[in-house]
């Protein structure tokens, strides 16, 4: 698990020992792999390789699949604001150039996979965070979802127990259903650990996806929460998150930030590191790897699969050891309770 978490941040310079002497793109396994295993297409979302988060995590899973199953892969990347048809073309191109399985990284591929999949019945598709947009089920598409609320619950417990002030904060990138899952789980976890805790909630944008790429907005929102007495702030705001970390640094010692998706302690700057309490891990790498594995075994995944705590599909990081050690016992107790079903985590705030 630790090695996977490390690989999950392939773009980070100091995590791969080499001190960042090689650009992330040049050691791309998809360019060098020549095994005779399955040929898998990876269609990235906006951001692509090197986002130190979602897309890199998918790549890390693929990297492992390449070494384990002699798989080969082809990559494509979405550009900001591109048309739906561009996504479809990308998927078609991959299918026509011989990919036997294609992974769309990100919910934005749901529609295009739905349109393309029926034309290529021999090819297996997977959409991470995806959903079937219509009523006709596709029998060659797997929707790989995550129980983000469960992971968020755990970091909510961590936040509440770490907090001295009795107030904690949440910064969401965009106020949509997906991010509300994070908020709901986080609040529930905090209240479970400390029933009288106060949770300040801010979203950077209501529907405009630019909320995921606005560090200045993330910093302003988080600073507002620190000013109101919060001493731990959790973000689910993608690229805006680095602004949230900056806000914690500015708020000074005794204030904390919690990362999201990948273990952000590993990719944060030296200045930010001491302030990152933990990160809610979303194991896109596990999902991608398992999908590749199912292809290799000839029993491709179809329909909905939810990666939750039980399968280690979500979790929390303990990379910042000195900050989190005191809390892990308590967090792991809640984790066990969620896995056993004793606690059901809400998905709506």
């Amino acid at each position: 698990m630790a090695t996977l978490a490390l690989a999950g941040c392939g773009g980070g310079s100091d995590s791969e020992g080499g001190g960042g002497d090689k650009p992330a793109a040049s050691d791309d396994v998809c360019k060098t792999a020549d095994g005779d295993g399955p040929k898998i297409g990876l269609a990235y979302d906006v951001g692509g390789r090197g986002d130190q988060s979602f897309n890199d995590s998918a790549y890390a899973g693929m990297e492992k699949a390449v070494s384990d199953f002699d798989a080969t892969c082809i990559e494509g990347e979405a550009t900001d604001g591109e048309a739906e048809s561009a996504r479809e073309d990308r998927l078609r191109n991959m299918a026509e150039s011989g990919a036997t399985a294609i992974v769309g990284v990100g919910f934005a591929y749901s529609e295009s996979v739905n349109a393309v999949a029926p034309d290529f019945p021999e090819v297996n598709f997977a959409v991470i965070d995806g959903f079937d947009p219509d009523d006709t089920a596709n029998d060659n598409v797997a929707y790989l979802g995550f129980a983000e609320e469960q992971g968020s619950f755990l970091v909510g417990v961590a936040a509440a127990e770490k907090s001295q002030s009795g107030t904690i904060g949440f910064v969401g990138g965009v106020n949509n259903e997906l991010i509300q899952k994070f908020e709901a789980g986080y609040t529930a976890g905090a209240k479970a650990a400390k029933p009288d805790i106060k949770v300040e909630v801010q979203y950077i944008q209501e529907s405009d996806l630019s909320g995921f790429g606005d560090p200045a907005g993330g910093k302003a929102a988080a600073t507002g929460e620190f000013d109101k007495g919060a001493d731990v702030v959790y973000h689910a705001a993608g690229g805006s998150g680095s602004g949230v970390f900056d806000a914690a640094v500015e708020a000074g010692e005794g204030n904390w930030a919690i990362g999201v998706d990948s273990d952000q302690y590993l990719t944060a700057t030296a200045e930010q590191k001491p302030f990152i309490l933990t990160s809610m891990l979303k194991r896109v790498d596990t999902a991608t790897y398992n999908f590749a594995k199912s292809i290799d075994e000839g029993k491709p995944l179809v329909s909905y699969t939810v990666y939750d705590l039980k399968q280690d599909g979500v979790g929390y990081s303990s990379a910042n050891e000195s900050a989190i050690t005191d809390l892990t016992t308590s967090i792991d107790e809640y984790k066990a309770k969620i896995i056993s079903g004793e606690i059901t985590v809400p998905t709506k705030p």
Partner: protein
Amino acid sequence: MSATTATTGRKRTIVERLTTSWLYIGLIGIGVVSFVRIITDTDDLTGAGTIRAAIIATCPILAAALGGLWAERAGVVNIGLEGQMILGTWGAAFFTYHYGPWVGILGAALLGLIGGLLHAVATVTFGVDHIVSGVAINLIGAGAATYLAEAIFPDYEGGGPRQLNGLEAPAQITIPGVSDLANSIADRHWFVVSDIASVVQALTTNISTLSLLIFALVIVSALVLWRTSFGLRLRSCGENPQAAETLGINVYLYKYVAVLVSGALAGIGGGFLALVASSGFSNGQTGGRGYIGLAAMIFGNWRPGGLLAGALTFGYTDSLRLRDTQSVHSLLLLVAIGLLAFAAWRAYKRQVTGALVVAGAGVLVMAWFLLTDSVPREFTVMTPYVTTMFVLALGSQRLRMPAADGKPYRRGSAG
């Protein structure tokens, strides 16, 4: 009889002098804000934290708006501000990484200037439509920054193909005694006094030197454009380039200078985003602030004071809604009072229809405030846009752009 007209005339000048004086308007404004703060019990409305966030949110928009002012005063519409700003974020990151923050700011200005140069070559030398060139600059700016980041930043410490974090920020200034005193007064929550103290506190505690520089650039721009012969010539190129040409002014040169300065200012705005508003470059971090700067400049009536008011209103309301969604509700009362006051002013000026329309809007907003407890979330994100539009649209009734703004000019066309 003549005596009475003289007195009414004198009365009128006194009233006008009172109301047009910025100082008094500012004081009355703070009084109203303070009143609203106490009535609605929203201390965040003028908290030092809010003011500080507002200053940070204002600066990049202000720099872009200033850039727009320079270009448009010389007759070149520069909607490439956004692209030049994006180039500035990259330049700031690259140069700060190697040579520290001050060279970084110069680098931001340099990259923005290159964007401005492209625009100047296209519009001034080749007479390309200003909008077409501007759109192209925006696309090129975004593409070039993405490409350059991907090519260069992954090798850097703290860098990746889409970001470069952990950059050193320009120095911050704190004036110890004043800062503490202001802090203690601000915490009392007194009427008006504490609000002013909050502003003083924000201005004297950890304020970035780059913020101060950008505000200083507004004054410098105003002085250069309106108080020097260079500025007069530059503006004449935006009003009537043919006439300027007959007076021996090298219109192309002035337009070039204006657009280059414009790009550099937008670049500095981008640099602010990468160095002060956050601590690093990240792809797409400008998020349309260049366009907002352009809009603030237009609604600010192509004047330094107007664009400053626009950028401040936008920055203030944007940080307010980002920090506390609830405080947006208190803002409604503020807007209602503002509208009613403006209606009264128009009534005094005997503009009956105008007064009625504004008063109607004021009553509606007031009713909205009184009948609800909070503003729907969907609306809060629009707050900065709506408020800025309101304030500036009401504030400047007669927008007058430079007469030859955006019009093609060829040398020798004066005949």
